[in-house]
């Protein structure tokens, strides 16, 4: 039950893209086609979960032990960057099929703030290990969801009359804002769900 609330929270209410505004760079960059958006989404889910898995250990078993939590940001960046490289090599050798579909997206998210953001959030919220992993997984799903919805809308721009001044980035930003507002409608869904479940 606890995880259900966590899932609703991470995917809809506190959507990493549309409520926390992290990772806007790929949100604008790879949202022109739904299939590339889907590929990117999958890569983010994968890396986000894996990175959080590692950084959680790094935080509690290295930083805390040596009492150097103030180095969190820089250490996480370093760890995530190395990790993504490692995953890329591993996939290329062992799962070439997956590498071909995710490969070009992996370097793109090496230093993405959404990945780092989730890694930092789970620490700051004092989540347990399992909670952290689930939160990262659902945040990734939320990221993919928002990206695919946005790409679907942007594909339609291709066949719509758009005033010249609004073409390309302008209309994309306006649309992103409107989607973010619509996601605002989920606010409070998690707490009401929680209260229903507790009853």
């Amino acid at each position, binding site marked *: 039950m606890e995880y259900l609330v966590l899932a609703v929270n991470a995917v809809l209410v506190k959507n990493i893209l549309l409520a926390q505004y992290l990772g806007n760079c790929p949100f604008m960059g790879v949202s022109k086609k739904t299939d590339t958006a889907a590929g990117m989404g999958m890569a983010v889910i994968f890396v986000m979960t894996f990175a959080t898995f590692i950084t959680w250990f790094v935080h509690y078993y290295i930083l805390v032990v040596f009492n150097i939590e103030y180095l969190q940001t820089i250490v996480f960046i*370093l760890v995530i960057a190395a990790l993504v490289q490692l995953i890329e*090599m591993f996939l290329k050798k062992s799962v070439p099929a997956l590498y071909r579909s995710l490969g070009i997206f992996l370097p793109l998210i090496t230093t993405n703030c959404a990945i780092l953001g989730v890694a930092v959030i789970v620490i700051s919220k004092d989540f347990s290990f399992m909670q952290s992993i689930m939160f990262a997984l659902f945040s990734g799903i939320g990221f993919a969801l928002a990206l695919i919805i946005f790409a679907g809308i942007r594909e339609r721009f291709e066949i719509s009359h758009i005033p010249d001044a609004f073409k390309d980035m302008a209309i994309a930003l306006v649309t992103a804002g409107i989607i973010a507002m619509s996601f605002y409608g989920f606010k409070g869904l998690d707490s009401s769900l929680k209260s229903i479940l507790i009853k």
Partner: protein
Amino acid sequence: MLTATIFLMSLGLVAAIILVVASRVFYVWEDPRIEQVSEALLGANCGGCGYAGCAAAAEAVVQKKAKPDVCVAGGFEIAKAVAEVMGMTVEEKEPEFSKPGCTYGYQDADLKYEYDGFSDCRAAMMLYDGSKICDIGCIGLGTCVRACPFDALLIGDNNLPVVDNDKCTGCGVCEEICPKGIITLSSATIRLMSDQKISECTAPCQRHCPAEIDIPTYIQQIKKKDYEGALRTIREKNPFPLICGWICPSPCELECRRNLIDEPVSINGLKKFVAEYERKTGKYILPYLPPDSGKKISVIGGGIEGLTASYFLRRLGYQVTIFESTEILGGILRYVISEEKLPGKALDWEIEGILSTGIEHKTGTVMGRDISMKSIIQSGEEMVLVTAGGWDSRQIMNSSGNMDSIIPETVLLMDFLNKNENKSLTVKGKKVVIAGEGNSSLAAADMCIAEGASKVCLIFPFSREEAVKRNLNISIRDKLEIVFSSVVSGLTGIGDKLDKVSFRNEFGDVTEIDLDKLILDSGRLPEMLFELDQETNRWKTIEILKVFGNGNSGGIFALKNIGRPTDLERVVVAVGIGRKLARGLYQYSRGEEIKPEDRIITNENELQNIFRIPQREKLIDHRGNYDPEGIFTEDMVKDQAERCLSCGLICYQHSIDLCKLVDQDSLI
């Protein structure tokens, strides 16, 4: 501070060690050439090559699945760079550009309805195939413009796509995306090789030109005083604008849409003007010539048909040698047409121009006397194209030479019937095959039997019932075998001897029989292509006539009753056939199947057309003022060109500013 520095350094070191180890453990060998090839490629990921992006194409090149010139968009420079990486060589190809095939935008064309929906041709197409009445009209919503990866397209003022040839790379993305198939890749070679299709916008005049010249385009060019361009347009389909300008009976003018108003545009007069213009400048306008493909071919017969085929073959990169039996090239035009109608100088000029593209010729060389199949094989040629004409060309040779000499042991029926004890034509003890058509071939069969032929086989292209209907005497005779519903599909021989003939019945089954002599019931020697085998000394025929669109029924002989062009009653017909011969030969030598193109315009197609033009002012031309040789003056040319309605399939110029065109006097 110190702790942090030491910690980060050690963390970095650990990470580095892990990565180094991982890069060894997970090492995947990649051909370094893939990287090099991708760098050489254009990087536009247009997909014009058929691979998913440049990286995939590079991989295909390295794996030898694709050739170095895989990048259609990159052109020769990039192909050369790729070939360098791969250690291969590439041939230069003629560049291709996109060419929109519609000339009337929706503000000028007749519409079924006003479209106001999604701004995309594919969307508009869903509603009754677009808003234009013309089935093949450009929708003009710019789907191709948005698809172009190189920004080479834009929608012009007339709501039609305009190609910027400097930017166009010929990748073919627009061709793929256009729902109407209107924008296509084009080059002079493609236009040379293609016939008019029902999916193309053609004017009535153009459709009725046996040589398929793009008449509206050249008239527009003449209107803009681009005489050189007009000549180039004509030469894409007809290497003899001057000769045709003098003597063409111009079937195009009969179909000119101006006939619906007053009288036709003098299309041929315009052609004659530009051709004479070239002659006056004294400088030939030569076409793009590709580098030699190294393929050699002999053409037997230096008449218009042979010269046309040679010109187009040269134009496709062949080394051509023409063998002509008389002392001078030009064939029947030299001997039959009077000097007033076609001056010999005009003929000379045009033939010289064709030879100046690098075609060799030997006159006074008779096939069968001076050269033979054997000697041609020994000289290292790979193919022989026979365009020797018929009894009419025999007349200009004063009946010199053996009557059956050109194709070994093959004789025209009329020569056989008139042989008068000619010893070379005796069939005693020989196996004879007659490709027949009527009673005269039966008479020839009787003659052979009477002479003592060991066996006679008569092949009719029609069925037994049809033969009875035609009152043919097909009663059974000794030693005579009659095969119905079959056509001769091949001849083979060794050296100077014909030894096998194969024929195909209506079900496509091929039978091969031995023979010594072949008699053809046609007025002329059909156009034939022989492939020569240097090693075995053997030769065989190729069914080159398939390009005429008669499908499987035709065989190798052009018999008139099955709809084949045989007697070339007009020079322009010979030109048209010459080009198609070159096309079939080109297809064959590239290992493709020789076949007519899909969806070409034939007499059976019903095309959209218009049969009435709403009332408009008449513009009678003043053709009386010819100079003595019948050549237009520049003013007359201007008037004539302005009279052209620039027709498309159903579009035409709806209004023209009359005052600009002619003096008020000539208006009726």
